[in-house]
């Protein structure tokens, strides 16, 4: 086939980009080569619109072993233990085919983690759907949940936390972000950098089929009316094979025969072979006839672009092939020597004794396009003037019931009960808390992880929203008693070619950078997903932040359930009464404008660190961060989980009860302490200049407000649990 500009454009390349390819090669590419360029130069693989901005993120820290640029980030948790983790999007395929899209998202991220030698120990996910009224939402939700469970459960890795939201901006583009944590010995981490000449290049895992061809290109474009036609670009997952691949790889990794290893994810054999060669500053030669294929008569083009799952590429030490093959034979997996490293610094492909591709590696990687896209700075919206009379007439308990029933607040038990969250026998905090927590097997340490996003805040003001998400992640870790260490981010946005969307991206990244730098909470891995839009309708900017923290002594872990009658409940952090962009404003006042709550990084850090000190001194019985729905929503959840009530009293502030209880000011926590410790706790808070309010004391089973209004905890629980169950059973 003669390649021309039109075919290049059909591959998602721009005119200029095609011109540049011809210049770099000093000739026209053939079809296989064009396929390779289109795979390497698309947004998903090349980060061409985002690279410039991602460079500004803080990525270093005392405990960071590996920052962005590898299969996943790595942090040091002491005693020669390290945690490998990353979050990744699988948005486009999940909208087209929710089960397989979500399943292969989970499979892909686990592969990224075990490629580095780590055994996966926990999965998390952040999933976002359109309005609950939208006709597609229910089936998409069911399919995605089944897909995540189908893959993770079979792998035997617990799914310990997650986040689900509903917003009409996702009607045409749902988000599925999957995160995995793995545990590895610090001196047994594997990287993707090839080294040495004439080293055998090994293909292991599943056979290559025609599934997922152009998956990465599909994920680099907007949807139109014909998305259903794109179903064949969705990969099909086989968690059983991945489980075998995991065990086989870890068995091989126990020895010393691997030089470099890279999973075949987006853009399959193309990106994995090129990345390994590029990092090692080497060339690579592959005989495509040696690649194990599932289907007959696959062309070089198809073999190179297939995104069949559960495959790995390994560069081995010479002479170790037989020993390695034995392991893969034991696990019934394909093993083939398909090529070798060379000094050519080119990728050279052979098929039926002919050279079918010959491309200098640097043209694919270093010379790939990078754009400084135009972007528009967002203005901070004006504060709304809230009519005090309107809100003072509201009955708090009735408002609370509405908030607890809201899809974005209600209990997500229907979802996480479908995920195995206890396999591996180390889950000490299951989904539904502020963070999931798993023990580091056989030690006193535990790792906490949380995944967060606040699209509404980011939409209202990207810079503030970006900071807020990082802070919320920080709080969720502290609430369980974990010291926050590092984050991974999944940046879900509309089209970078639209100035406003690009502005949202740039400013969210700036916000994330500022907060993570101030909190010493660096970014060690992540991915960018642009083009989450249908025609010209983009999603609300949704950066998801996956935070990881460490608990040195797992017996000190904190949960949010209220523990004991007569204990005292405090709010840590100051409540100013910020109602704009709160759930209360949207659900009760039907008000969508105004600025998000301000972030004060000093208070955020000071409040959090002081709370950690209190936890470490065994002075905290339960804790929960205050987020969507404000103080009273957080309190209700603590009551429901602990099956206890509370006598609530609003402190004598100038703001009204409604503002006090539903405001979404940041940097706040609810904590439970025992009466005998009260003086000690208040002294420490005062000494550290941390603002606090005394809210009341715990009782048997009723929420009393100012001694007059009341509601039973059973009733609150019913309101909190009914919506999702009823929605999914209709």
């Amino acid at each position, binding site marked *: 086939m003669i390649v021309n500009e039109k075919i290049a454009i059909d591959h998602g390349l721009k005119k200029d980009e095609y011109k540049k390819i011809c210049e770099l090669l000093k000739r026209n590419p053939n079809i296989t080569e064009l396929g390779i360029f289109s795979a390497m130069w698309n947004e998903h693989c090349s980060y061409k619109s985002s690279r410039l901005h991602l460079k500004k993120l803080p990525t270093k820290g005392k405990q960071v072993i590996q920052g962005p640029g590898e299969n996943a980030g790595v942090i040091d948790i002491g005693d020669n233990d390290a945690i490998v983790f990353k979050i990744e999007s699988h948005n486009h395929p999940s909208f087209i085919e929710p089960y397989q899209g979500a399943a292969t998202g989970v499979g892909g991220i686990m592969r990224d983690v075990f490629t580095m030698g780590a055994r996966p120990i926990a999965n998390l996910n952040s999933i976002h759907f359109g309005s609950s009224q939208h006709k597609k939402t229910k089936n998409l939700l069911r399919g995605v949940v*089944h897909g995540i*469970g*189908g893959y993770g*459960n*079979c*792998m*035997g890795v617990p799914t310990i936390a997650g986040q689900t939201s509903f917003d009409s901006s996702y009607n045409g583009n749902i988000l599925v972000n999957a995160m995995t944590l793995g545990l590895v010995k610090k001196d047994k981490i594997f990287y993707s950098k090839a080294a040495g000449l004439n080293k055998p290049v090994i293909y292991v895992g599943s056979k290559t089929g025609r599934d997922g061809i152009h998956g990465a290109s599909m994920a680099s474009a907007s949807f139109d009316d014909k998305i259903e036609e794109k179903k064949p670009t969705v990969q099909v997952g*086989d*968690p*059983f*094979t991945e*489980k*075998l691949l995991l065990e086989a790889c870890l068995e091989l990794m126990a020895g010393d025969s691997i030089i470099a290893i890279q999973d075949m994810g987006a853009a399959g054999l193309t990106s994995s072979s090129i990345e390994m060669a590029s990092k090692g500053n080497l060339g690579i030669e592959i005989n495509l006839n040696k690649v194990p294929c599932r289907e007959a008569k696959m062309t070089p083009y198809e073999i190179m672009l297939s995104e069949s799952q559960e495959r790995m590429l390994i560069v081995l030490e010479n002479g170790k092939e037989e020993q390695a093959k034995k392991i893969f034979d034991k*696990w*019934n997996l394909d093993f083939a020597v398909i090529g070798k490293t060379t000094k050519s610094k080119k990728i050279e492909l052979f098929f039926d004794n002919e050279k079918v591709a010959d491309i200098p590696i640097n043209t694919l990687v270093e010379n790939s396009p990078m754009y400084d896209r135009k972007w528009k700075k967002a203005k901070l919206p004006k504060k709304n003037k809230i009519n005090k009379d309107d809100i003072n007439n509201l009955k708090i308990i009735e408002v609370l019931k509405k908030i607890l029933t809201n899809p974005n607040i209600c209990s997500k038990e229907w979802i*996480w*009960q*479908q*995920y*195995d*969250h*206890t*396999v*591996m*026998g180390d*889950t*000490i905090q*299951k989904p539904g808390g502020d963070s999931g927590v798993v*023990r580091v097997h056989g030690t006193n340490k535990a790792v906490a992880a949380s995944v967060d996003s606040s699209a509404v805040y980011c939409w209202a003001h990207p810079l503030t929203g970006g900071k807020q998400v990082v802070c919320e992640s920080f709080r969720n870790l502290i609430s369980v008693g974990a010291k926050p260490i590092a984050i991974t981010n999944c940046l879900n946005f509309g089209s970078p070619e639209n100035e406003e969307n690009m502005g949202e991206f740039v400013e969210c990244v700036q916000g994330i950078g500022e907060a993570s730098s101030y909190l010493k909470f660096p970014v060690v891995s992540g991915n960018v997903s642009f083009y989450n839009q249908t025609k010209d309708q983009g999603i609300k900017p949704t950066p998801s932040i996956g935070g990881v923290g460490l608990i040195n002594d*797992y*017996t000190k*872990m904190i949960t949010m359930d209220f523990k004991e009658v007569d204990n005292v409940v405090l709010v840590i952090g100051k409540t100013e009464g910020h109602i704009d962009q709160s759930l209360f404003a949207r659900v009760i006042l039907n008000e969508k404008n105004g600025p998000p709550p301000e972030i004060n990084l000093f208070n955020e850090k000071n409040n959090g660190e002081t709370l950690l000190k209190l936890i470490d001194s065994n002075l905290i019985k339960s804790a929960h961060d205050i987020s969507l729905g404000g103080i009273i929503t957080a309190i209700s959840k603590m009551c429901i989980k602990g099956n206890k009530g509370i006598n609530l009293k609003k402190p004598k502030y100038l703001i009204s009860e409604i503002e006090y209880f539903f405001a979404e000011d940041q940097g706040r926590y609810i904590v439970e302490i025992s009466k005998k410790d009260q003086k000690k706790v208040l002294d420490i808070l005062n000494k550290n200049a941390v603002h606090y309010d005394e809210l009341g004391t715990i009782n048997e089973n009723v929420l009393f407000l100012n001694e007059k209004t009341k509601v039973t905890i059973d009733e609150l629980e019913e309101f909190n649990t009914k919506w999702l169950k009823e929605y999914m059973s209709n």
Partner: protein
Amino acid sequence: MKSAVITFPGSNCDRDMDVALKKFGFKNKMVWHQEVELPKSDLVVLPGGFSYGDYLRCGSMASKSKIMQSVINFANSGGMVMGICNGFQILVETGLVPGVLLRNKYLEFICKNVFVKIRDKNNAYFKNIKNNVLELHIAHNEGNYFCTNDQLKEIEDNAQIAINYCDNQGKIEKSFNPNGSIKNIAGIFNKEKNVLGMMPHPERMIEPSLSGEDGSLFFKNLINNIK
């Protein structure tokens, strides 16, 4: 006491079972499915997971594994064999215990704590457990136990029902049945009661910081009652 846990391709609770058995004093060995002979053992465990991906039918391929002939011989000669979750599915496929395990009634995977009532203590598995009700953990997609009316009569006549789903007081009612299984059956014995298949995972409930510790009662009793 010596135990053996069989690892099939796709087993994923084999390590958890190994940890639990060792914690309560068993000398445990892991046995690969392609072995022919079992090591000398007092207890053989078929662990949970997704053997062979649960493709074809849960447990059916594993039931034909090389090692299984020797497991079947061991059971038939009176040896103690316990199948948990996927292990239970493998046991029904071998015919060592009667019945089948269908997909959960609501077609969804369920992972949560449940209460089970011990129905019969005249066997080594439950003999000296003081409690009549245990809080255990389930995590499965195909735990909906089913058998024919004739089989059910036989099972009941022989007191082969080991545990039923119930509430925390031991009340066995439909509303406490998580998966639609017939008569709330969560676990059954063979006629001789040396073979036990059950859906709940006692190995996930062996410490207070986990989902609970009633699993400890089960293992402590087990090691004390194996001959």
